[in-house]
């Protein structure tokens, strides 16, 4: 599915090391994802970040790509069983849920720690003036 060879001006930055590896074989192993002709399509920054996290964690050996694809498929199947519309609109929500599940399963972190961290980020946003980088203060 990659047509990375194209390389017009807009796509000039694509042919960099590392990412091509992600495309063809690994994306093919995943359940169908929102994509255009060139690969995964994101609608918001968090989706790309979640995508990158799964790719990198797998590259680092914390789980195999096959395990990742399986976990994601489970999430999607459960969503379908709950009667959620299968129109791709929540694909990356399921992606994030699968990521959380695998991270906890592999004891890379705990559900409680992730929850606390999420709250900490929300808090940081609420207390950071516009125009300044949002940063976490260390809490431990």
């Amino acid at each position: 599915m990659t047509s990375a060879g194209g390389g017009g001006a807009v796509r000039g930055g694509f042919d960099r090391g590392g990412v091509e590896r992600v495309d063809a074989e690994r994306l093919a192993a995943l359940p169908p994802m929102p994509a255009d002709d060139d690969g995964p399509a994101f609608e918001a920054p968090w989706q790309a970040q979640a995508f990158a996290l799964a790719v990198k964690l797998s590259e680092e050996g914390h789980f195999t790509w096959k395990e990742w694809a399986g976990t994601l498929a489970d999430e999607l199947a459960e969503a379908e069983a709950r009667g959620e519309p299968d129109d791709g609109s929540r694909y990356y929500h399921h992606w994030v849920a699968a990521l959380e599940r695998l991270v906890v399963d592999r004891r890379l972190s705990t559900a409680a720690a992730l929850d606390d961290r999420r709250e900490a980020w929300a808090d940081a946003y609420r207390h950071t003036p516009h125009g300044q980088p949002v940063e976490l203060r260390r809490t431990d």
Partner: protein
Amino acid sequence: MDESEGRPVGRRGFIRDAAVGAAAFAAPGKLMGSQDESHRHSHEHGHDHGHDHDHEHQDVPPDIALRVRALESVLVEKGMVDSAALDEIVDTYENRIGPRNGAEVVARAWVDSAYRERLLADGTAAIGELGHLGGQGEHMKVVANTPEVHNLVVCTLCSCYPWPTLGLPPVWYKSAPFRARAVIEPRAVLSEFGLDVPEDVEVRVWDSTAEIRYLVLPERPAGTEDMTEEELVGIVTRDSMIGVARVETPSGGEPGGDA
């Protein structure tokens, strides 16, 4: 807050913190540019210390985005994944996924002067004509580069970026040095991007916010008269729509010619 046309308000207290090394503090939706970056001492408008009306604190991102941040920050902290490597993937994808929508807007404006007028008068509506508005309800304002004026867009948050038209913000756009320095010394920043703006060209810096986002309409390069709209889409870069680059005439000769 006033969301009227962004008219020049000169440099006010917006950059008060920048001079002491913090990030630039920007009033929402206003032109805060300066064509003379040597005036960094001019934060005489100092009474607004940290209380700049209704955008004092940042919008909390949606829960799902916070969950991703939580995952990322926990795992990076534990050394399980490298933050720069994540950025690299994101940066690579944003280069090719997003900006095409914006490029279509620009190319249309280049070939259709009536569209250009509508675009500059009401960016939100004109971009909507091409179907490229997100569901966020944010206002889009399009600012045109001319031989006299060069526009540069900056913001302080990744959320303050017109991603329906430009895709995901590049990593450097979110960096503290860019955000602070784009306001203080826009010409120097542009020059680091390889763009030297002549002294007699005014540089205007626009601050994006959650409510209003900016898109630069770059100048159509010379020598592209024979190119089709579709071909023009292909030469418009993301950086040119942020204002850190010009659109270059395609090298390798006569576009649309006998090649």
